[in-house]
């Protein structure tokens, strides 16, 4: 998906695939590893989500059971957090898309005649990855805190109420989420736009289409695969994020997301079934999105 941006060279037509036992030997170690450390944990999560506390047991002691109610309990208790997570994630995705598309378009289409600058700009886009994202988020926290230049400036210009905050509000959380996932949105968009054949845009113009119409009817549909990749790559981690919403970072009292709840339940209150059922709910929503995506585009292009 996004990683074709890193491919050097053009894809060659491959020979018809050979049938050979070597394939088994090549696949087995990795696949077994993933089965053991990805599938089994998911199964583990499902089992845990149905567990019930051991009567008279310690905190954190559970036994295998089939307690459906874990799910209803969790939805009742944290329904607000669940909805909030998806809302923040959707907003962050939309903002990231609006921010990244022109950026990716410039780098991928307009800047093609200067490949060195193109690469340089790409490096700048992914540069944030090279600084720990915790520090990035904390940097924004400082830069947007009440005492910072930005906020005092905005207040001085009467663009913000004197007693308003930015950090600790949902806006700050969405801002943080958007910022942190911009590279995830930009790269797949870039990868698709880079392959855009500008002659198609010229053909649009030749066939009486005005620039905006060409954009709407040619560019956007052709870059759709990049848009979908970017949306998935942004929405999915954003929905489960808890750093941005954490109170030590950009969040406040009313901004806790599903991730925060899962974390606190798992690591602090040791309420494993609750944490597990929340995780499964999150996973289920994601799986629905992925299934729709796979049904439409098939599994060949997934990787």
């Amino acid at each position, binding site marked *: 998906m996004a990683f074709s941006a890193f491919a050097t060279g053009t894809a060659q037509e491959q020979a018809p695939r050979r049938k050979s036992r070597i394939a088994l030997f090549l696949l087995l170690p990795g696949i077994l590893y993933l089965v053991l450390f990805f599938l089994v944990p998911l199964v583990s999560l499902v089992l845990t989500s149905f567990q019930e506390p051991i009567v008279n047991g310690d905190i954190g002691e559970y036994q295998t059971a089939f307690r459906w109610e874990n799910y209803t309990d969790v939805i009742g208790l944290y329904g607000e957090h669940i909805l909030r997570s998806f809302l923040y994630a959707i907003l962050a995705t939309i903002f990231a898309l609006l921010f990244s598309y022109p950026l990716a378009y*410039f*780098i991928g289409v307009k800047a093609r005649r200067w490949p060195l600058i193109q690469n340089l700009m790409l490096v700048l886009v992914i540069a944030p990855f090279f600084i720990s994202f915790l520090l990035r988020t904390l940097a924004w926290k400082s830069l947007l805190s009440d005492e910072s230049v930005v906020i005092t400036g905005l207040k001085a210009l009467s663009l913000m109420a004197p007693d308003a905050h930015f950090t600790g509000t949902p806006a700050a959380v969405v801002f943080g989420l958007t910022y942190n996932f911009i590279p995830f949105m930009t790269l797949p968009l870039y990868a698709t736009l880079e392959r855009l054949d500008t002659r198609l845009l010229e053909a649009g113009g030749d066939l009486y289409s005005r620039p905006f119409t060409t954009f709407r009817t040619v560019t956007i549909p052709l870059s759709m695969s990049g848009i979908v990749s970017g949306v998935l790559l942004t929405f999915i981690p954003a929905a489960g994020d808890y750093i941005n919403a954490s109170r030590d970072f950009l969040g406040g009292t009313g901004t806790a997301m599903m991730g925060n709840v899962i974390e606190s339940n798992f690591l602090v209150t040791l309420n494993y079934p609750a944490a597990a059922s929340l995780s499964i709910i999150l996973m289920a929503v*994601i799986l629905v999105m992925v299934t729709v995506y796979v049904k439409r585009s098939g599994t060949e292009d997934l*990787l």
Partner: protein
Amino acid sequence: MLGEAVTAEKPPLRARRLSWGFGSWLLPAYTIIALVFLLIPIAYTFVFSFNNSVKSNIVWRGFTLDKWANVCDKAEVCEAFGNSLVIGVVATVCATILGTMIAIALVRYRFRFRSAISLLLFLPMATPEVVLGAGLAAEFLTAGVEKGLVTIIIAHTMFCVSFVVVTVKARVSTLDPALEEAGRDLYGSPSQVFWRITFPLLLPGIIAAALLSFALSFDDFIITNFNAGTTSTFPKYIYISAARGIPAEANVIASAVFLLAIILVLISQVSSAMRRKRLAKIG
């Protein structure tokens, strides 16, 4: 590492300017502003690594090179950094080996359950980190395995494999299959063909995958947090000290890593540009 990303079939952009319209300055201006915006936190972190801070590193107290000079005065920072390095290297090696083998199999061979395997490789990239982390922690819990360095490495290898597969697969797809056939035609046994032809040509992709894997592992927090137990890693240290106040030494390490990464990337870009010039066709 980054793609030269020019397809051979497309014609070069014509020298005559395409019609830019009134907004021809709009897009470049926006791009510059956007890029600056992206870099603000990096600049902030870098600047504050020179802060003469005492406890918390929020208020500017004065410029000093002290923190850079004596990074490991704060022992916890260096220990955390060291752990992250070890984990990164081990997880990268494991993930790269496993992932490269899978990538080769996917591109070159026919086998059953191809769709299921593609899905299995794709899902870790699509699963939120909380779910991955919680799931693994649940598994370790049920298995009675003690959380520590090893469990972190296991976790990191797991989520890196998919990314390695994707990166190497892209590279394998650019390999002309006729090259390996030529190798076999010229009396190369299967292992000779692999080590003398396939592997050297895959190497740039494998290196890119390894770097990507290391970067993901080094920066990982959420999955690590669930599976680390008491072991400290660099991101974990930052998270924990976020409440108290992060020492400038952490900024120093982060900035140093950033500079190193940027320099590596720039070197690779410049050297591949120079290589392209040198290899320009003659005659």
